[in-house]
């Protein structure tokens, strides 16, 4: 099976003034279609950096990142923006919903960039909110929702365009244990039932154990694939 994501000899060096911070050094990673990969590693090891590169919101200093056959490191900013809008769904630690928009409107945001009619957008948004189990809260504002519910709205926003890949940076980092469980159950379902390829970063071993594959990042290097999560 062809790999959906191919990362070849990728390095990333942050430059600020004359200070160079090497963060990733010659990373190689393949992620198959339908994979559910968890990345773990100490703070500062470069997990977010790697995730950003896969998601196309940052560019590597060196190396190739081929996603679905496209070398995204070579795309222009605007082409990359377009590519992200149809291929990547983002889930953040702090949900990052727009506070003045309702749950429905937040989920609808990515669809505003498509040619869908208002009616079609409504169908998609309702479907996405149904999947995360929040259809009845669609007119709530973020501050009227619990943290776990906000994250579910954020997940609905991530899947509403039906992207290939979901990118999640510590999606349970700000949640209590029960809400975290719910979110991970939802993520597993998105992977198994809706065939989303998921790359997730976490600090928490229990959260990581819900993924299919676990990889460790340390000091900018990916440790050899040492085992499958349970």
């Amino acid at each position, binding site marked *: 099976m062809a790999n959906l994501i191919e990362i070849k000899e990728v390095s990333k060096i942050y430059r600020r003034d004359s200070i160079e911070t090497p963060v990733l050094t010659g990373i190689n990673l393949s992620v198959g279609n339908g994979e559910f990969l968890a990345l773990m590693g100490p703070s500062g090891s470069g997990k977010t950096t790697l995730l950003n590169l896969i998601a196309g919101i940052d560019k590597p200093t060196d190396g190739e990142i081929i996603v679905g056959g496209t070398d995204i490191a070579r795309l222009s900013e*605007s082409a990359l923006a377009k590519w992200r*809008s*149809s291929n990547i769904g983002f889930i953040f630690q*702090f949900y990052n919903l*727009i*506070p003045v928009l309702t749950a429905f409107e937040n989920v609808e945001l990515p669809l*505003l960039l498509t040619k869908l009619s208002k009616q079609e957008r409504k169908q998609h948004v309702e479907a996405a909110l149904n999947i995360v189990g929040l259809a009845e809260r669609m007119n709530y504002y973020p501050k009227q929702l619990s943290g776990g519910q906000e994250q579910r709205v954020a997940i609905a926003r991530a899947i509403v365009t039906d992207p290939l890949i979901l990118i999640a940076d510590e999606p349970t980092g700000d949640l209590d244990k029960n809400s975290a469980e719910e979110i991970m159950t939802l993520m597993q379902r998105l992977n198994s039932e809706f065939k989303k390829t998921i790359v997730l970063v976490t600090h928490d071993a229990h959260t990581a154990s819900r993924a299919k594959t676990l990889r460790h990042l340390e000091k900018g290097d990916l440790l050899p694939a040492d085992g499958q999560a349970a």
Partner: protein
Amino acid sequence: MKVLKLIFKNSFRHKLRTFLTILGIGVAVMAFGLLRTVVNAFGSGVRASSADRLVTRDAVTFINPLPLSYFNQIKQVPGVKQVTYMNWFGGTYIDQQHFFARYAVDPNTFFSVYPEYEIGKKAFAEFQSQPNSCIVGSALAQRYNFKAGDVITINGDIYPGTWEFQVAGIYKPEFKSTDAMSMFLNWNYLNEEVKQTFPGRADEVGWYVEQIANGANPGEVSKEIDALFANSPAETKTESERQFQQGFLASVGAIISAMNYVSFVIVGIIMLVLANTMIMSARERTREYAVLKAIGFSGRHLVGMILGESLLVSLLGGILGIFLTYPLVNSFASFSNFLGAELSVQSITLITAFTAVVFVGIAAAIFPIQRAMNTRIADGIRFVG
């Protein structure tokens, strides 16, 4: 359309802050409107002045009167088509708060030299035949609800005593810039009264106004008039009405340029008020803008959102300010009785205020837009306000 809704919701995210910003802009625009109105009113005398009229006054000072006998002499000067004369009457109507200009004019010649003051035949006939009658401007009549037949009582100062004038009619200004706030009374009647009480001051004229013939050279005619009275006890100075007005403007020029400066300083203040609000919101929304970019929104979308918000707030402030300008100018006009001229908000003032507000809306968005565009998505998402 969704984006418009988001712009609107974003603008009112911090209701109090946005409200105070709009209020601040509104108050500044109001001050701007008042200043521009006053500056414009100064200039309106010049615009209203006629190019074919000359004013002859005492060469030394405007206050010194000229003899009535000059009338026939001036009439003889080649190039002079018509002559009229008038005196500043002064006096007080009710009290100092109720100021308007009052002139004693020659009833036979005044309205033909000043055709821009339009009066009906009946009113004109009555003004000529009734010694104590007067003609009032339409704006003046409107302010005090004067009608034909009403008696206006004036307490004299230059001409002491209690004076009663009966309104013979109301004149209409021909142009928007024509003064409509003056009162004209019969010079002959005034002169008869003065003869009784101050015989020494009879047959004195404040100044003469000549209308020159088509094609006559105003400079030449002025020289000839002044030459007539050279080396007499009352030498004259004749200049065009426009020069006369400009001479007055020059004397208050420093005030006008100060007001001009201040009005543009106000625009700067509006900009700072708005820019401050916009920069605060842009900073607070660093992460949101980064998320929108990550989702696929382009720079152009962000520019539209930020610019839209800035323009919305500045326009709301501008509209509020323009609405506040009217009552402010009216109350200012009623207590200051500025130059006796009708102070009114002119469309050029509205256009200037509107342009300034749009300019400010755009300028205040520049920094936030730059910030939103230049922040790398990855950094923006990490950003913690």
